């Protein structure tokens, strides 16, 4: 006796049925009375909304927000400058393009990319805790906490950009007698430069956002001021500060696109 294959239920339908039954069953065990722990959420949202239409625009507060923005920008510039430098060097090594021997090239790619994967898999907030514990709650700790994972991210992405340069133009340089280092200098770097600058600026924007949330280890700036205003539920100030943060991101975006036009 053989089962007719056409009468067998579709495995996808069976799986979907099982998943739906499990989901509906789980609803019976949920604690429906304790879904939202904060009973005054509606009032808080109204307060936030009210702050948005009555921004704090007094002269003194604008000066404070401007100073905080400059501090955040300064930390972000320090962190991204270190990250671009080490990311660039790391990218050159991790691309494998500096080595002519296939063994050295593969060793560099495997070892260095593994190292970069470990460093960038740890979020900047975790790095901030680790570094703050080692060096203290100082601005330098914040800068290092940003620079270390960002260097690893940039190095990985830069390595990919350098590897993606079309091979024929590189081969033409090799037939002109160029060494791997000269091929890097005359072929890979110029061809990848635009993308590298573009990605560097995108990471700069991320760095500004990250710098503003690292106030807890001693970074002053927008994040710190937002925290102070939030403690007193002064949403008019919070929104003004957030607008300054958005302004910084737009400024960096404009800066990056202007620079890309010259490359």
């Amino acid at each position, binding site marked *: 006796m053989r089962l007719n294959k056409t009468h067998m239920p579709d495995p996808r339908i069976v799986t979907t049925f099982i998943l739906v039954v499990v989901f509906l069953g789980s609803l019976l065990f949920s604690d429906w009375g304790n879904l939202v722990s904060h009973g005054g959420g509606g009032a808080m949202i109204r307060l936030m909304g009210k702050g948005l239409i009555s921004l704090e625009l007094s002269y003194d507060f604008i000066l404070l927000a401007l100073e905080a923005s400059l501090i955040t920008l300064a930390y972000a510039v320090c962190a991204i400058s270190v990250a671009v430098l080490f990311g660039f060097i790391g990218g050159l090594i991790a691309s494998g393009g500096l080595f002519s021997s296939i063994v050295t090239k593969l060793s560099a790619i495997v070892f260095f990319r593994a190292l970069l994967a470990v460093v960038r898999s740890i979020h900047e907030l975790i790095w901030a805790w680790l570094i703050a514990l080692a060096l203290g709650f100082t601005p330098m700790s914040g800068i290092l906490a940003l620079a270390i994972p960002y260097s690893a991210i940039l190095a990985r992405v830069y390595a990919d950009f350098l590897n993606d340069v079309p091979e*024929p*133009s590189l*081969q*033409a*340089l*090799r*037939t*002109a*007698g*160029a*060494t791997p*280092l*000269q091929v890097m*200098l*005359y*072929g890979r770097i*110029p*061809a990848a*430069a*635009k993308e590298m600058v573009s990605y560097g600026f995108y990471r700069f924007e991320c760095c500004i956002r990250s710098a503003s949330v690292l106030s807890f280890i001693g970074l002053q700036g927008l994040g710190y001021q937002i925290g102070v205003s939030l403690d007193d539920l002064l949403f008019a100030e919070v929104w003004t500060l957030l607008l300054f943060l958005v302004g910084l991101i737009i400024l960096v975006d404009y800066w990056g696109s202007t620079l890309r036009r010259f*490359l």
Partner: protein
Amino acid sequence: MNNVQDAYIYSLTGVSKFAEKIPIIQDITLCIKPEEKVAILGPSGVGKTTLIRLMSGEIHPDSGTVKLNGQNSFHFSQGRELARIVGVINQQFNLVDELSVMNNVLAGNLGRWNFFESIFSLISSRNSEIAQNALSMVDLSGRDRTKVSKLSGGEQQRVAIARLIVQDPAVILADEPVSSLDPARAEEIMKLLLKYVKTRSKTLVAVLHSFEFTKKYFDRVIGIREGAVYFDISTNSLTQNVFEDLYI
């Protein structure tokens, strides 16, 4: 026998190359004398580009030997020594689009420069007199600061020739150097290339598809079919029938 072979700039003996066990080049034996101008003809996909890559030292044969100036091509393995003997020019020009005309032309000097000279040149366009002369030979004077990506196809091929002039190799391997150009630009580039080859006493090996260019500019013609030499004759013996028979 060795002495006879040493008189040739190229000496290929029983050369074969496979791609996943499929023969691309099969048992090719040929010799090329210094200053000879050799056209390689044949339908698409018969192994002409592979032959050029074998002769340029970019790849090595699976069997047989490729000798350059009497030395096995394995000896060179794509180094500076090889760049002094062989220069390559391609259908797609293979320039660095993001660099200026001057820097692309100066790249012909990379085989002579150390790393610091290369960096200095990239920044300052050093040694520009040699490059300026090369640019003037290809009628691109005054365009040295232009980005290569802003040039037309014909102009880019002229930059590639100027780079070869700076590199100054004994042999020029040209893989379909005019295939992507319109007839007028193609004629212009062929004239330029041949003028350079003749005045500097270079050897030229060029892959072409044109009966007219072969007859007009070359001494000898090698027909390739199914990875093997189909004919190897003087250009005087090349008739329209022989040419068409190769492409059937």
